[in-house]
């Protein structure tokens, strides 16, 4: 029973990471209906920026909480700028050429990996050891890592914030309108171009949070950490229902728990195969995802 609950907790933690990245995918996909394969690698870039701030600047001398907060703030701003730069100079002109967009995004992913590899080296880098990430506490009879609770709690509050943003704010509603019908939204005076930038920016910010948080959580970061994470997060978004904010969360947590379950009870090497197997199964049986997609049907 204990191991089951512990597996569940670690699944929810990994799932929180997936969910945060999936949110970015789902927002961009909801508007432009394109898969940004480089999204996962933004997480990696953000993790390295965070590491640089903590390890190579005086910020590292501050107490843990402020130093992580500052590193995260810098990493988020830089990642958002990178993402908007990529949108402006590379992606924007390809939005009406889906095949080209996806191929280019894939190339951007590999280019980012190579650049980070050149700048920071091919070996792993280590975040400072924070006591919070190793301390464990007793919760309802099971021992959990305190950091697990921080990750799950932070992810949960960000997700609730996103739900509020999409459903209650004017910008969020404009985005949903855009997802249903580009032309009609344009005629209603919605600035499509600006909203695409907002979606890219929010996605990048969430990716950056994920990057720094996973650096603090796992301590080790490497240039290859982002791509597979991105693919699994996209899988999560599709499983939950692409374009659907709540679906991205449910899908992310589900994929995380599935992965932890397979690793805990079957075998570590098979977990990726299980995740993609689940994706194929879901697409076959319920192509709109578990919660249903919010993207309008196109002919």
């Amino acid at each position, binding site marked *: 029973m204990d191991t089951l609950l512990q597996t569940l907790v670690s699944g929810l933690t990994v799932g929180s990471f997936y969910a945060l990245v999936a949110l970015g995918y789902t927002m961009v996909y909801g508007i432009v209906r394109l898969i940004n394969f480089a999204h996962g690698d933004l997480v990696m870039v953000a993790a390295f920026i965070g590491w640089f701030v903590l390890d190579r600047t005086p910020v590292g001398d501050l107490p843990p909480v402020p130093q992580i907060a500052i590193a995260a703030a810098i990493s988020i701003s830089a990642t958002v700028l990178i993402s908007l730069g990529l949108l402006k100079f590379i992606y924007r002109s390809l939005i009406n050429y889906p095949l080209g967009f*996806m*191929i280019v995004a*894939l190339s951007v992913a590999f*280019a980012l990996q190579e650049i980070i590899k050149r700048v920071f080296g091919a070996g792993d880098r280590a975040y400072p050891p924070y006591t919070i990430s190793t301390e464990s506490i007793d919760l309802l009879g099971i021992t959990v890592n305190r950091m697990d609770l921080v990750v799950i709690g932070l992810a949960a509050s960000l997700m609730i914030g996103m739900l509020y943003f999409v459903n209650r704010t004017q910008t969020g509603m404009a985005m949903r309108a855009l997802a249903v019908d580009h032309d009609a939204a344009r005629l209603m005076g919605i600035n499509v171009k600006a909203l695409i930038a907002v979606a890219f920016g929010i996605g990048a910010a969430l990716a950056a949070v994920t990057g720094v948080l996973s650096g603090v959580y796992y301590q080790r970061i490497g240039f290859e950490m982002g791509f597979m994470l991105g693919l699994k997060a*996209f899988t999560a978004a599709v499983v939950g229902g692409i374009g659907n904010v709540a679906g991205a969360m449910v899908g992310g947590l589900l994929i995380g728990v599935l992965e932890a379950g397979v690793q805990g009870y079957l075998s570590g090497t098979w977990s990726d195969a299980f995740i993609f197997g689940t994706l*194929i199964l879901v697409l076959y049986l319920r192509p709109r995802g578990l919660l249903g997609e919010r993207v309008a049907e196109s002919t």
Partner: protein
Amino acid sequence: MSALASAHSMLNSGSLKARMAMTSILGAVSFTVIIALILMGLGSSYWMVIAISVATYATMGLGLNVVLGYAGLLDMGYAAFFAIGAYTSAILTVNLEWNYFLSIPIAIIVTGLAGIVIGYPTLRLRPDYLAIVTIGFGEVVRTAFNNWQYVGASRGLYPLPNPELFGFKFDTPDLQLLLTAVLLGLVIAFVNRLGISHIGRAWRAIRDDDFAAEVVGIPTLRLKIGAYVMGGAIGAVAGAIFASRSVAIDPSNFTLFVSVQILMIVVLGGLGSVRGVLLAATIFVVLPEILREVQEYRTLIFSLLVIVMVKYRPSGLIGERVSPDAAALPSLNAVGSGDTATVAEPPGPPEPVELPGKEPRVARGEALLRIEKVTQQFGGLTALDDVSLTVRSGEVLGLIGPNGAGKTTLVNAITGVRKPTSGEIWLGDEKLTGTKPHRIAKHGVARTFQAIRLFPQLSAIDNVIAGEYQAAHLGVVDALLRPRRERRHQAETVERAMALLDQLGIADSALRTPAELSYADRRRIEIARALASDPELLILDEPAAGMNPSEKRDLVEILRSIADRGIGILLIEHDMPLVTRISDRAAVLDQGRMIALGKPDAVLRDQRVIDAYLGSASKGDDDGSA
């Protein structure tokens, strides 16, 4: 005239002849073997090994080119096919001690089966999901080999025996290179044949717009699976080549990164271009050997090259030839011979195009299309409410009604785009409801779209030829093994397409792409494409939109002559004078209900119709103020 000039120049270009030569097995194999012999003459085993590597990448690139370049399917896990092919060959030769040459066909079959298993459920999904599913497939396959003890798990399979034929061993680099060259030559010939065949044309139509392709009669799902399986089979050949010269294979040879490299080769070379892929594969392998710096930065350099290429030169290093049929355009020469063929010239007296005889479904004037109590609901909205209507063969039935009345919904129900909630639709004694769009097109229903949906990258004539696909009595075997039959078929289809374009007055735009043509001309191409399927029922969704008065006059004449051939026409149009002039009968839809049916001028004087258009309080002239 420039289109004609370019057609002539293409006709005479040497490269086209070279291309035709490369569809011959003998031609392609001699090409690769001669290159191999030259390399062997140089005597450096280092460069021979490099050449085998080029051939391996080129073979994989050509296979992915069928999937991605021809059919437009983004397969990001192509290495899975490579892996299955290599492992099948290795299992047969190592574990079961088969002869290497016997293992190749088995490898191709096993890989093809894997392609069907993964392709059938996924290719019916949205195309962008395919990318992620194929990555997943690639990872699942690699994980499976990585954990399968029978194939040595992560250690892999070794030692792989040298290929042996009748006691003759291929045990030196030059002999292996020769063997590789023969296999690559075969692949080049087959890929070229597929590319210019009726199947290759249909793939390009699917790549451009798979919905429009389905509606004009191309069985899109079957052809996508075909592309996936054939591309996979070529990947199996690449795997077999790899196994023939390697000492061992293990799962690390087949990572996602390999798939990405192949993808880059195809994109850099040019989607759909065989020569481009060969060139890109050569650059990809040879450049890092010459320049050490490139080796270190290979991934970065090629990633950036792909980005630049897609943005600024999407056709790649060597672009795919847009209209490979220029060589077979005798009728184009005939049309162009008189220097009077200009855009301004009105279409000549429409002469019926001779179509291969098909018995008409019903006698002239009999009920051809029967719509019986069709209701279509979208959620709470009833778009069609118990609509019944008959179109007779040889008549023009005008279907009118205010915007949102359900006209296009009715067309979608007839053509199988969306199955009605209830009711039945029959064409003669053939039930159309519940049938797939391409089957309905084959039964003899053709349509145009309210918002034009031509294949943007195909020339006008190739657009029209796409409409002829369902009439082709050819199969994969013809495409691969009977180039002469294919060429004869091609000559016929080109001739018919030219005649149709001529009939619609746009013959001299045959080689232009839709973007280069006026709105009215694009509408004409759509009509020609619809007619190309030799339909019994032609549905035109606002064909006169965007046409000027003289173009409209021509259109009336053309439609009249089509109807006189015994084809039933269902015409949706907002231009009331045009409807009155051309229609034998007119039907009026309003808010999903049929409110009037009869002689056009009588219908337009009907009070309910006037009310529908102008609101119930007012009385007005019926000149089509929709």
